[in-house]
């Protein structure tokens, strides 16, 4: 199955800008389905980005991050063609990782 993580990493002038969109329901646990049952909480808790074996960004998320979550950050370093490893784990223990090339 294709990865749930879409990444756009662009190196420019020594700084790499990273945009990520992840396919995930991000259920908060506060919403009821049509027959009134609470939809159990199911959301990504930690998302990490690694470049050159070093963590460049760690996102810890609670129940208030939008469905199909998006985050943008940038870091010094990173050149065209480098690998960027991205991985997440959610409160149900599911994980997904992907490695992309910096453009």
């Amino acid at each position, binding site marked *: 199955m294709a990865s749930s993580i879409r990444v756009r990493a662009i190196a420019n002038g020594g700084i790499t800008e990273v945009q990520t969109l992840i396919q995930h329901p991000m259920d908060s646990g506060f919403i009821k389905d049509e027959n009134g049952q609470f939809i159990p909480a199911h959301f990504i808790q930690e998302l990490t980005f690694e470049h050159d074996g070093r963590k460049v960004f760690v996102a810890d998320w*609670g129940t208030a*991050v939008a469905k199909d979550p998006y985050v*943008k950050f940038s870091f*010094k370093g990173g050149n065209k063609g480098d690998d960027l490893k991205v991985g997440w784990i959610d409160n149900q223990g599911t994980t997904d990782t992907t490695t992309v090339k910096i453009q």
Partner: protein
Amino acid sequence: MSNLRESLSVTRRLILEGAASIALVGLGAISFPIPTALAAANDRYPEAAFKQKDFNEAIKLLYGRIAEQADKIKLDAPEIAENGAVVPVSVTTTLDDVTSISFVVPENPNPLAAYYRLPPGTMPSVANRLKMAKTSNVIAIVEAGGKLYSTSREVKVTIGGCGG
């Protein structure tokens, strides 16, 4: 229809050249007694802080210290959210040595929304999309040089549509 291209770029990959007029609003500092110094960023997922129902407590649990108002933080959030399910919020700061950035929405069931750890070399700015239960302040907290700064602005949230 030569200007079609230009308007079409609006609908497809649109790169925001310059930041549009970002209203900088710095509200008062969040004041609460100084608890015992607590190492802020350990590596584990701050479960307790994310579960905390009171936003001041959540910040105390996460950072264990007082946040001062700072005007060096630019918080960009809509005045009226088009939909509480997807509220684009971003923050950038000129403070140095920033080690973490967090977003807190006091009126949400769990006010601590997101906590970002920025290792050295990572630029002090983050954009993300939050969920907001109802009209509330959105507080951006920046940990820089071992001190805690914050700014906040109100985002109006209501449902759409006319009835049903």
